């Protein structure tokens, strides 16, 4: 009875081994480190995919395990990206400004540097002062803390209001979509302090680091793999014990859990907040690899995609979420990146860039109707076959 949660669930070790092997293979085959079979831009794509897998694990925790269909977790993902983006952009601009001002005879005053940074970053939205929310942007440790604190705090406040009022089911989903939409609309405004629809850019450049993108892409790839591994372990630990039993109980029969004496709202709030923080971390690793973040990233549709990935991968099992996010987002990159060959039918040519969304929608419907366990359900069939 006294086994650790990993011994009880060997799929965790299998997953971690696969992840380690994958990381090793990509590293060896990359341009920055090894043989050069994999281009730097594809390393970035793979690194970003790992981040999407991590946010999918968070989504599985809140939806697959706790039964709360949040359609707002990509908002937390985006917020994490914005928080790290602020430091990257500020620090890089500061170095450029300092270097430019160093050309003059008199050494620049700190005020000159600050105003130089302000007009460089906010010139596009017609301002030259750093808004108040950039107060911590000079400090990497503070912005790193904000990567988890801002999504966590938003989730805590939003969740407290929603769960306390016993908003459940589809109503909660709609509420989370509304939150996401409100956030996106706010970010689109020029005076939001986050450069409006320009977003934050140049995030692929690490300030003060002279290494090329082939190296930097690998560092972020490794960091993403590590974060996914740790996030997976954390999620597996959370879901393995009594806490996991209780949240699955909440998913299946909320009032039974309540009458057993558990404060259901507190448990929901805990999972909602923890998963928002994981999403923030995933976003903070994703956007430096993407190079740019703008409000369109936080659009409501992104959070819906997240739910689609988890549904296709198989919710209620962590590796299902990873498979769904990895598979669907990579296939999506392939179809929409122009690599997929168009199909000429004579009278009409199927262009995958246009048709991919329809294909995705159809597969979502098909999975929901015919394979509610998703791709992950195939492993159950395999197990059954072997048991025979």
């Amino acid at each position, binding site marked *: 009875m006294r086994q650790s949660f990993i011994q009880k669930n060997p799929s965790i070790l299998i997953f971690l081994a696969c992840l380690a092997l994958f990381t090793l293979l990509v590293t060896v085959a990359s341009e920055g480190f090894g043989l050069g079979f994999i281009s730097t831009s594809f390393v970035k794509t793979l690194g970003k995919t790992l981040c999407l897998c991590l946010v999918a694990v968070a989504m599985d925790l809140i939806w697959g395990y706790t039964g709360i269909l949040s359609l707002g977790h990509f908002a937390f993902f985006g917020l994490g990206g914005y928080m790290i983006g602020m430091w990257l952009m500020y620090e890089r601009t500061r170095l450029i400004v300092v270097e430019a001002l160093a050309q003059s005879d008199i050494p620049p005053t700190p005020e000159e540097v600050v105003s130089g940074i302000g007009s460089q970053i906010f010139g596009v939205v017609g301002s030259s002062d750093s808004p108040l929310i950039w107060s911590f942007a000079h400090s990497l440790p503070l912005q790193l803390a904000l990567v988890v604190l801002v999504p966590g705090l938003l989730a805590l406040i939003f969740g407290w209001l929603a769960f306390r009022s016993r908003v459940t089911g589809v109503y909660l989903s709609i509420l989370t979509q509304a939150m996401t939409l409100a956030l996106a609309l706010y970010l689109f405004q020029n005076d939001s302090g986050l450069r409006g629809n320009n977003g934050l850019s140049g995030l692929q450049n690490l300030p003060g680091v002279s290494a090329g993108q082939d190296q930097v892409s690998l560092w972020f790839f490794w960091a993403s793999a590590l974060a996914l591994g740790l996030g997976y372990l954390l999620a597996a630990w959370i879901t393995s014990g009594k806490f996991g*039993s209780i949240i699955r*109980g909440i998913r299946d*029969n909320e009032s039974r859990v309540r*009458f*057993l*004496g*558990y404060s259901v709202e*507190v*448990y929901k709030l805990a999972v909602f907040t923890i998963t928002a923080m994981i999403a923030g971390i995933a976003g903070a690793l994703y956007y430096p690899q993407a190079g740019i973040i703008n409000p369109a990233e936080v659009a409501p549709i992104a959070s819906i995609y997240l739910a689609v990935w988890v549904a296709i991968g198989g919710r209620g099992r962590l590796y299902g979420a990873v498979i769904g996010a990895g598979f669907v987002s990579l296939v999506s990159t392939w179809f929409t990146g122009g690599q997929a060959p168009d199909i000429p039918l004579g009278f009409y040519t199927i262009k995958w860039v246009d048709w991919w969304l329809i294909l995705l929608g159809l597969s979502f419907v098909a999975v929901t109707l015919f394979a509610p366990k998703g791709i992950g359900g195939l492993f159950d069939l395999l197990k059954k076959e072997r048991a025979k």
Partner: protein
Amino acid sequence: MSHMSTLLEVSGVSVSFDGFKAINNLSFQIGPAEMRAIIGPNGAGKTTFMDIVTGKTRPDDGRVIWGEKSVSLLKMSEAQIAQAGVGRKFQKPTVFEDQTVHANMLIALKNDRGFLASLLYRPSNKDLARVDELAGEIGLSDQLDRLSGELSHGQKQWLEIGMLLAQEPRLLLVDEPAAGMTLAEREHTTAILVEAAKTRAVVVVEHDMEFVRRLDCKVTVLHEGSVLAEGSLDHVTANSRVIDVYLGR
């Protein structure tokens, strides 16, 4: 009944839904180790009564007083009331179907209900022994590793009663435990409840007269949201008003 020996005292409670008085000036008392059956026709207010005691429904009027310290249950949440010692069994068996019998019992076991405590919880030897002991009492010792969704209807009912016992409540509210059970299953259920009532209060809401007779306890008859008669089964079944509104139909 003297105040000292009262565990739950409901007095003058009324509640209406859209003008319909589901509970009308209801008063009810039960002692700390007592079995009580509540009978009454459909719509008599049996389930609403349970909803009020467990905090699911707030009454418009009246008092619900609990325990030696005479605290009011009306200001407490469902979870707080459950923690104070009120356990409830639903009419339909409600267990966590995709989890094992053992996991179901562990969730129910009386322990710290906070989320951090649950996150860090490791079952102690005492807890594991208690689960084994309870499984023996409800007759599910050899089913502990099965998914509770695979159990028969009767076994699910017992599991839910076992989960209630694991909570160590001082008052057990049981809604139609015998519904859909075979004769042998009913006998087993009766035995579990009678045993439980030796150390705590047990309130059984039941339609089935035969089952109530087996319980061999004081009976409260509800009608239109208030108490119509109270006493032994023979006493209340001899009451002409009870015969009129309930048994005579």
